[in-house]
């Protein structure tokens, strides 16, 4: 997203940090400290917080969004963005609801949810990489389009009556307190980590985000990689749609409204540069936990949802502003 000129000042340090030293100074360590603080604050604020089942319930707060955030992280690192993810959930959920009305079974519903996600992702990828639209505007358009179709189909109605075994994806447990959603999230996070940090495909994404022209000259098929990333984000939204629909047991066209902003917040909070080119999967995962636990803790304290959103907004700005302010103060001191 070429909204901001890249004005990073690059300097070659005299001495490189050790691996551990780098990590301690890194974003993930900061987030982790923050997470521990929230954990401690929550367990002090409410005696029920540390109960395993309570913690398990807390994960429902963020797993669906976090699954999309993993894919969105790839996309933002590559310098693009997808604001239509919540609308894809609405459309996929509507399609699944319509299919459930005519008696399609759970496996069929999942296939429909995933295919709608993939189709929407492919459409986004097509208009961004083939037609060449800036992704931020293009996906604002598809956001209206996808959710608009859901409204056309459903109006002010609602789909209910999903098959009984469909409830597993949003309400089932794999083992003890570990829900299907949570386990799926952990596995997907592991897969995303390997893909981004341990494969050439992952390196290509960083290369594209840092310098798309340079990447093209290095033989990376930039458009194809970006298309795949949009496809991946669509698929992740499809997965989230299955889980959310199964958890709620009903579909309205306003389902998951406004989630795109929460997902982007999660990714940025996780240390991914909104300008592209840097970020890590562990950062996104920790940020997901941070956001989930903050909202859950506030929920235990009976804080209404919209007030929580103030905290999320403040957190987003504060965590990004803080290192900048600290750096500015340090630099000033060095000059004098």
């Amino acid at each position, binding site marked *: 997203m070429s909204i901001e000129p890249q004005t990073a000042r690059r300097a070659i340090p005299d001495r490189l940090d050790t691996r551990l030293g780098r990590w301690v100074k890194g974003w993930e360590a900061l987030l982790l400290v923050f997470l521990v603080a929230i954990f401690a604050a929550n367990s002090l604020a409410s005696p029920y917080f540390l109960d395993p089942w309570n913690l398990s319930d807390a994960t429902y707060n963020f797993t669906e969004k976090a699954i999309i955030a993993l894919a969105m992280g790839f996309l933002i690192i590559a310098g693009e963005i997808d604001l239509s993810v919540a609308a894809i959930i609405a459309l996929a959920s509507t399609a699944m609801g319509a299919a459930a009305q005519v008696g399609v079974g759970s496996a069929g519903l999942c296939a429909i949810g995933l295919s709608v996600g993939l189709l929407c992702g492919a459409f986004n990828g097509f208009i961004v990489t083939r037609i060449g639209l800036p992704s931020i505007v293009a996906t604002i358009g598809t956001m209206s389009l996808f959710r608009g179709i859901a409204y056309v189909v459903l109006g002010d109605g609602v789909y209910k009556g999903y098959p009984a075994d469909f409830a597993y994806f949003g309400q089932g447990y794999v083992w003890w307190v570990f829900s299907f959603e949570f386990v799926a999230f952990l596995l997907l996070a592991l897969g995303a980590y390997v893909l981004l940090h341990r494969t050439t495909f992952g390196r290509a994404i960083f290369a594209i985000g840092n310098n798309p022209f340079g990447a093209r000259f290095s033989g990376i098929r930039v458009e194809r990689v970006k298309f795949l990333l949009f496809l991946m984000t669509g698929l992740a939204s499809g997965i989230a749609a299955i889980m959310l629909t199964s958890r709620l047991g009903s579909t309205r066209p306003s389902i998951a409204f406004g989630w795109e902003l929460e997902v982007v917040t999660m990714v940025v909070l996780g240390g991914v540069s909104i300008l592209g080119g840097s970020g890590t999967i562990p950062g996104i995962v920790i940020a997901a936990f941070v956001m989930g636990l903050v909202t859950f803790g506030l929920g235990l304290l009976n804080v209404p949802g*919209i007030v929580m959103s103030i905290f*999320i907004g403040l957190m*987003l*700005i504060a965590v990004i502003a803080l290192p900048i302010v600290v750096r500015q103060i340090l630099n000033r001191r060095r000059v004098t």
Partner: protein
Amino acid sequence: MSPKSLLAQREAFLAVAILLLVGAIMTRFSGFAAPANLANVFNDTAILIILVLGQMAVILTRSIDLSVAANLALTGMAVAMLNDSAPETPLALVILLSAGIGLALGAINGLLIWKLNIPPIVVTLGTLTIYRGLAFVMSGGEWVNAHEMTPDFLNLPRHVVLGLPILSWVALLIVGVAALVLGRTSLGRSFYAVGGNPVAAIYAGIDVGRTRFYAFCLSGLLAGISGYLWVARYAVAYVDIAGGFELDVIAACVIGGVSIAGGIGSVGGAVLGALFLGIIKNALPVVNVSPFWQMAISGAIIIAAVTINVRGERVKGRPILRPAGATP
């Protein structure tokens, strides 16, 4: 083709598209083009037009302001509650206050972007939730209904002067001022310079951060004024007013040919873009299309409009690799 003639061509194209649209609507409902009805449509679109002009200034500087609708909601709620609890406050002061609150909220965005160098999309994503959250905190989730506001407060935008309601006149006035500021002042030209080429702007002696700050102030100011106008026009204030309206505003800019990459756009185009959306919104019910279609249609139009704009803007690249199988 020079950017200027390209833009003029795009505006002409959009004007023709609007005429065709009105023509198509008239085949179903012949009264649509009656002057009184067109005046109504314009009045309905007035707030969108005002917001689009502020957003355009921001987009010109290669930024984006997602917080305009939240700013509108917070400001609207503030003045509605003031009017409810202290009805004796002079109306002029209330309006001045709405402009002031909006300006302050816009300045917060601008300062974070200018002084801390945080990308605008991140800042306004944050303040979007914060401002709307504050509207909830302030009101406790309560509505301010028509009977709790004074008649003067509610009737001002409706008051008809020379055949048009004051709301329309305000929009026209702001369009005129925006055209002057963007076209004829150094501030307006620096918006274009900063977005067109930030590095060159620095060498030309323009403070990029400060210029962005002014653009966000302008956007906030117009959002604040719109806050009062919205509450007075719809005679109700609640937390969710204008929910998601920021996307309509950005869409209208894009349809009007304002380039999201900054530096390109005109007041005329932006106004036409807003009118295009406004006409569709007004026409759907009269041609018996369910209002549920509106979202899907505006989405499709945004995509179509950007596609058309991108064709003109695209930088022609030198093909460095021949496709496989192509004969040299």
